[in-house]
């Protein structure tokens, strides 16, 4: 007997819904067969989920809510950074299919649910009902419902994020990548402050966390069964509302993509571009320099890697200064600005390589070299100064008991050096990206030497202020702002002079290097100890050793006892006092700087895997 005609449209719709899921299943099966990555990720994810469930058995309710929220947030954000969109069925794939918005959205979400991330997340969120088991069966059921709602929130949120934000190649993805890497590095650099806080958090959430979790949806499923019934119903209803809103937003998005072209990519009109306001506030700057400033500011706002670098510097600086608060140390807060400025300088040490051979334009213009150098430096200053000032002022306001003078006076010195020296460094060591038109997150035009020189120049510029703060007589304090400004001006002049010299005398070499797209083979370091490799690459090994160990005499053995008066345990100068302490501290800094410089020289002279140390550059036609 044939199927009843009235059921045929329903069957067609169900069939259409199932298509994306079948496509996704095929893709997943193939990727599991061809690559071990997803299997490894699944095992790591399952281990983390098992730890979360174990924690849920005896752990703190609010901390568990926080961890569940972090898990869902990670599920939404991490695919943007790690290219998790590959192998997904996307709305654009259904553009030519005869399928409506609702079935398409359902089908796409069903397809999104097939994968390692969603499966592992479902296991991890089971920690919530496990924790609620102590409150009875009804609590387990309610919390399980809440966990499923959180899972749906993660599933739909991830799908929306991938469509709207795109991948790391787009500006929003680049910003996220910068924030994420800055956070990771900031936390890594503040482990001493983060670890004790995390240990406290795992035992019992502090009061401020408890208060905050009342407003965080991931805390609601458990809060719903531990508080008054009315409040619990409200929380679960709110959770349903959030998921429904996300679903509606996703449905609209899918409809737009299926109906039209790629959304959210507005084109700038000719008229708007031509009539764009000139930078009147830079009227005192020569027109050619102003033109370069305009080009650079646009590049900073639009180039995904530049945005990523800037976001990294800001987040890294802010976290290095702010995370110690977790251990009640506010000493570094006013330094948020200087640290971010230093980070921005370091991240700008390879910008010429990002631009490919676009330097030919200033090199065919009268006085173009000077305009190029000054425009680049000035644009950096225009962009980074407000960030540095804002972070410094915020730090000062948040830590009213800390003397901010040293940080405030160091800021102009760092700005002067950070604006100009990286321009010189990036003209000196050009590492062009493979495709300047469409760079990827994997492109990195900066190497360790460029970063160290850019950072080192900032530290040298800041040295007069720091030296006066540490060793200067008390009467010299009013002069510190002037010293900072003069140091910044001197660093600016020095950096501009060096960059001018480089571009004016060797501009064509720079251009040829920028056109050298076939990069020589990178030095590949062995992932594990390999005695044979170290025997065959002694210069590289020595360079790496010196560049790693050289920081120990400089920072913990030198700067920490001299600048912050820290002295205990293995810090040699800390066991001395007076002149002996100063002398030993300074000797340690000298030793470390010598080691780092020797490391840099050796790194530059290491044998290149592909042949000569300095590849010949040029073009022929």
């Amino acid at each position, binding site marked *: 007997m044939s199927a009843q005609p009235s059921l045929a449209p329903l069957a067609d719709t169900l069939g259409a819904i199932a298509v994306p899921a079948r496509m996704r299943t095929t893709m997943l099966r193939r990727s599991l067969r061809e690559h071990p990555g997803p299997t490894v990720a699944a095992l790591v994810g399952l281990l983390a989920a098992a730890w979360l469930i174990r924690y849920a058995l005896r752990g703190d309710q609010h901390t568990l809510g926080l961890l569940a929220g972090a898990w869902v947030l990670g599920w939404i954000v991490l695919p943007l950074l790690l290219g998790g969109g590959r192998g997904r069925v996307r709305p654009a794939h259904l553009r030519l299919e005869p399928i409506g918005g609702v079935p398409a959205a359902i089908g796409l979400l069903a397809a999104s649910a097939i994968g390692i991330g969603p499966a592992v997340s479902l296991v991890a969120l089971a920690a919530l009902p496990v924790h609620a088991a102590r409150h009875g069966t009804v609590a387990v059921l309610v919390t399980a419902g809440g966990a499923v709602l959180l899972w749906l929130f993660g599933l739909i949120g991830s799908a929306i994020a991938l469509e709207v934000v795109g991948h790391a190649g787009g500006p929003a993805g680049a910003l996220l990548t910068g924030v994420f890497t800055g956070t990771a590095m900031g936390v890594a650099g503040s482990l001493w402050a983060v670890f004790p806080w995390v240990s406290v958090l795992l035992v019992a959430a502090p009061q401020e966390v408890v208060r905050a979790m009342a407003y965080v949806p991931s805390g609601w499923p458990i809060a719903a069964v531990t508080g008054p019934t009315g409040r619990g119903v409200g929380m679960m209803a709110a959770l349903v509302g959030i998921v429904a809103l996300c679903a509606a937003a996703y449905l609209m998005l899918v409809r737009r993509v299926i109906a039209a072209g790629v959304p959210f990519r507005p084109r700038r009109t*000719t008229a708007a*571009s*031509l009539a764009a306001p000139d930078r009147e506030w830079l009227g005192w700057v020569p027109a050619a320099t102003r033109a370069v400033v*305009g080009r650079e500011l646009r590049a900073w706002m639009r180039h995904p890697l530049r945005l990523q670098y800037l976001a990294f510097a800001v987040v890294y600086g802010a976290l290095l200064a702010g995370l110690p608060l977790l251990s009640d140390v506010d000493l570094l807060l006013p330094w948020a600005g200087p640290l971010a400025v230093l980070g921005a300088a370091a991240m700008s040490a390879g910008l010429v390589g990002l631009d490919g051979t676009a330097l030919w334009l200033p*090199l065919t213009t009268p006085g173009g070299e000077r305009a190029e150098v000054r425009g680049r430096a000035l644009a950096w200053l225009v962009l980074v100064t407000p960030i540095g000032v804002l972070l410094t002022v915020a730090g000062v306001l948040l830590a009213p008991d800390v003397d901010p003078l040293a940080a405030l006076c160091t800021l102009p010195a760092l700005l002067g050096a950070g604006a100009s020296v990286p321009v010189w460094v990036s003209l000196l060591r050009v590492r062009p990206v493979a495709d300047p038109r469409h760079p990827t997150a994997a492109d990195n035009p900066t190497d360790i030497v460029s970063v160290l020189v850019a950072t080192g120049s900032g530290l040298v510029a800041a040295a007069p202020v720091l030296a006066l703060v540490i060793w200067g007589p008390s009467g010299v304090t009013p002069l510190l702002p002037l010293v900072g400004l003069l140091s910044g001006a001197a660093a600016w002049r020095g950096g501009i002079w060096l960059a001018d010299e480089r571009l004016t005398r060797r501009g064509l070499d720079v251009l040829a290097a920028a056109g050298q797209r076939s990069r020589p083979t990178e030095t590949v370091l062995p992932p594990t100890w390999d005695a044979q490799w170290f025997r065959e690459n002694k210069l590289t090994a020595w360079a790496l050793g010196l560049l790693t160990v050289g920081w120990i005499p400089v920072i913990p053995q030198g700067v920490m006892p001299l600048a912050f008066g820290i002295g205990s345990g293995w810090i040699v100068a800390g066991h001395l006092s007076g002149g002996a302490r100063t002398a030993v501290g300074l000797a340690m800094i000298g030793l470390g700087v010598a080691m780092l410089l020797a490391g840099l020289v050796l790194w530059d002279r290491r044998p290149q895997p592909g042949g000569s140390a300095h590849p010949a550059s*040029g073009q*022929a*036609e």
Partner: protein
Amino acid sequence: MIPPALEIRGLVKTFAAHRAVDGVDLTVHPGTFHGIVGPNGAGKSTTIGMAVGLVTPDSGEIRILGHDALRERGVTRALTGVLPDGLDFPERLTGAELLRYSAGLRGLSRAAATDRAAELIDVLGLTKGAGTPLADCSTGTRKKLGLAQALLHAPRLLVLDEPFEAVDPVSAATIRRVLRRFVAGGGTCVLSTHSMLLVEQMCDDVTVIHQGRVVAAGPVAEVAAGSSLEDRFVELVGAETSGSAGLDWLTGAR
């Protein structure tokens, strides 16, 4: 006496062991179209690159409108408009922003820059390219935008490397008209190309470069010597047109 628009004497350039340009002499008369032709790798782009200051010569002299191009760089840069081949632009700028940037570099007033850019965008059919980031523009649009920036400051010598590459026929006709008006107005245009037809149609003089040396130079009709320029070119570079032998597996009866 009016000096040549471009005068090159004994130009040499070597990359590693390869001598890309080997004693090139070239004279471009003012107010003319001058074509530079040659097979791939002949040294055309390197010669042009050295003429406009984008490649350092090992030896030789270059004079632009009577000025030493190696010593009076500021003057010769102001006189010259350049469209190089295969180099990047500031890729995040839109076409219109590129023209504003280029005008700013050249010190043009804002009003002049806006008027000239708008006119060039209109004449060269760049309305879409003007609002699109250069990174997303097609090769043809990039060529036209490059030409627009080269014309923007009204140079006296225009040096164009493969200006018609990937440009559609309608745009190519427009560009030819613009360039003819430029030369009729007293400007000089040097262009490298692989199209012999284009040289025959547009150029007064032609220089044929092969293996880094000039193998023929002079008025187009004189160099063609009674045959088509294409045949003469093949003869000059000493290559039989290959393709008539071999490939039996492709052309044999199936």
